[in-house]
């Protein structure tokens, strides 16, 4: 690390000798990549170890089984309370006397700004590029089931948050694990909470930081031409540093306002492409269904499609991971379960709507090469061959660009803003875990924030493979601890659900006249 900083500073200081240090910088990127892969390899291997005798990673099964159990345990809460969740977001049940506090809409929007982003653009492209259109089917299914996981963790997040005398709040899995286990007389809550915090810090540095920086660089380089990744990393790190350390809120405020519009623009553009290519939508859904159960020639067959779909869905909507519980815990409500209802909309918007849009556009764009004789996808290594050899965000960009020529430029801006917004959100999640471990205090917080900024540079400089692997591994490691705790605490949520349902039915909980 010391070497990296020294090298970067030297390179910047000697900017007059551009060709010479450009050559050196490429070497630097490769070195960073190699060192990074070496350090993270064992951790990644452990998290993605296949089930004995299969190629199916145990972690994917872990997430899907949990989401299925929560769905059944709460009797399909995502369907039964969907309408009520929409009413809550609209503010129908908001007490006018609480005006000025964090509303359900704001908590949802904040959580979404941390999840909607590159997972929806680049992650889906990775899933479809390797698992084929069939991965979309499993992604949607994972999204629908994941709604129940999100409901469980966000209810607990609000119920067991810390409310400090000065009015600020801190919540998340580390708090509900330690408090919930203590309340139920279960041992090991403190250790699990610490373990979660450690993984959350790694997740913040991986998926919430390095993956974002990496893909943002790929997108910018795709537009302006290739250049060393650490340059993008330094620029991003400087801006993030200005916000999280310098407290320049205006940058974050602008981003928080622009990002939702970019999201709407993205979905709008996808809808326009789908409308223009309406004759291919039926075929695309046919590919999705056929691919889901046959694979249509992708590596690993339908199991390959399933693994990719589930993996990318989990990475995109973070259901079961526990990060959303940190974001949702700030809402002002007397009923913790209401935030659980609101949070179940998150995987729906993120995965079922936005990810599906991306997958459909990639499928109908013709970027994935199909063997005309067999109707199966052609392979380039383990991934599907594409028109220009694109993968990740470049594939999504090419797919949108095939219909709307200028859209890659808009997408580049969207990717940068999404990446930035996600980094800001995850810097907060990581910070909360950091302060849970090391205590509140300026020196402690500054240490984490500086580490966070350094990892932006590393993420932008490393190549896609090791970064994605580490990002996934860190995020999924959070899910291992969080879901274990949710199994022990889910009966508390069921009691909340029973009590709330009864009072809602009896009319004790009423809509407010606004």
């Amino acid at each position, binding site marked *: 690390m010391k070497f990296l900083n020294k090298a970067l500073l030297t390179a910047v200081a000697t900017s007059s000798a551009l060709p010479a240090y450009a050559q050196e910088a490429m070497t630097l990127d490769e070195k960073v990549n190699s060192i990074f892969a070496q350090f993270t390899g064992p951790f990644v291997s452990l998290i993605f170890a296949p089930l004995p005798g299969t190629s199916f990673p145990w972690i994917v099964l872990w997430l899907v089984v949990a989401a299925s159990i929560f769905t059944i345990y709460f009797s399909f809460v995502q369907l039964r309370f969907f309408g009520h969740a929409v009413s809550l977001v609209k503010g129908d049940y908001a007490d006018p006397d609480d005006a000025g506090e964090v509303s359900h809409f704001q908590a949802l929007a904040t959580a979404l700004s941390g999840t909607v982003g590159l997972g929806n653009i680049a992650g889906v492209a990775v899933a479809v590029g390797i698992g084929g259109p069939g991965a979309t089917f499993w992604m949607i299914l994972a999204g629908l089931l994941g709604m129940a996981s999100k409901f469980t963790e966000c209810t607990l997040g609000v119920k067991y948050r810390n409310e400090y005398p000065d009015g600020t709040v801190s919540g998340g899995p580390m708090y509900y694990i330690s408090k919930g286990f203590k309340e139920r007389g279960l041992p090991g809550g403190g250790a699990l909470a610490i373990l979660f915090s450690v993984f959350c810090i790694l997740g913040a540095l991986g998926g919430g930081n390095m993956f974002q920086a990496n893909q943002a660089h790929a997108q910018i380089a795709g537009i302006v031409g290739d250049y060393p990744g650490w340059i993008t990393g330094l620029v991003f790190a400087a801006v993030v540093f200005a916000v999280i350390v310098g407290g320049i*809120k205006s940058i974050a405020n602008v981003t928080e306002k622009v990002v939702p519009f970019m999201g709407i623009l993205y979905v709008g553009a996808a809808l326009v492409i789908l409308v223009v290519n309406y004759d291919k939508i039926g075929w695309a859904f046919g590919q999705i269904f056929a691919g889901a159960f046959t694979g249509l020639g992708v590596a690993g067959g339908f199991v390959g499609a399933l693994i990719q779909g589930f993996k990318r869905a989990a990475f995109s909507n973070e259901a079961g991971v526990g990060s959303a519980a940190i974001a949702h815990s700030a809402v002002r409500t007397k009923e913790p379960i209401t935030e659980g209802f609101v949070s179940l909309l998150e995987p729906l918007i993120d995965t079922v709507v936005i990810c599906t849009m991306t997958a459909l556009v990639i499928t109908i764009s013709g970027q994935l090469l199909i063997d005309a004789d067999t109707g199966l996808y052609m392979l380039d290594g383990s991934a599907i061959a594409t028109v220009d050899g694109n993968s990740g965000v470049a594939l999504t960009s090419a797919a949108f660009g095939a219909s709307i020529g200028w859209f890659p430029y808009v997408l580049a801006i969207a990717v940068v803003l999404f990446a930035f917004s996600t980094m800001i959100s995850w810097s907060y999640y990581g910070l909360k875990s950091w302060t849970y471990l090391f205590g509140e205090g300026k020196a402690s917080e500054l240490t984490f924030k500086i580490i966070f900024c350094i990892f932006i540079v590393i993420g932008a400089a490393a190549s896609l493979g090791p970064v994605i692997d580490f990002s996934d591994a860190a995020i999924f490691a959070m899910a291992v601890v969080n879901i274990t705790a949710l199994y022990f605490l889910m009966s508390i949520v069921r009691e909340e659900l029973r009590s709330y349902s009864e009072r809602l039915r009896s009319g004790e909980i009423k809509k407010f006249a606004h």
Partner: protein
Amino acid sequence: MTTKLVIGMDGEGSGDRALNFATDLANRIGDCELLVAYVIEWSPYSFQTAEENAQRHKRREEEISTAMERVVEPAVEALKKNGMKASGIVKHGDVAHTLNSICEQAGGHQIIVCRSSEGGLTKRIFGSSTANLVMSATVPVTVIG
């Protein structure tokens, strides 16, 4: 029967004109109660960072306390010095909608406000708070120029 007048303050000098008008009107009416109201513009549909959300309750309390100290309490004191029965309230929300709600809840008979200080694009797109209040209020509204 006591007549209740709600005075909408905007935190600027123009609020004094509304206050003076209300005092004069109350003196003419006789049995009158004045409610000084200040609404902090706020929307439940705005976008905030996670850190802002975590600190929102604290900020809200600070905003209410600042508005009370700087705008509402001095106005209430001034009215009381003039022999009026007066009280104050600070709320968050859409200015026009919230002022009307305050008036309805207090059983007010009239709202007195000054001409809006907004301008530019905001006014063109969303209309001024005063104009919106005049259009939507359920009680008579007096606008002081």
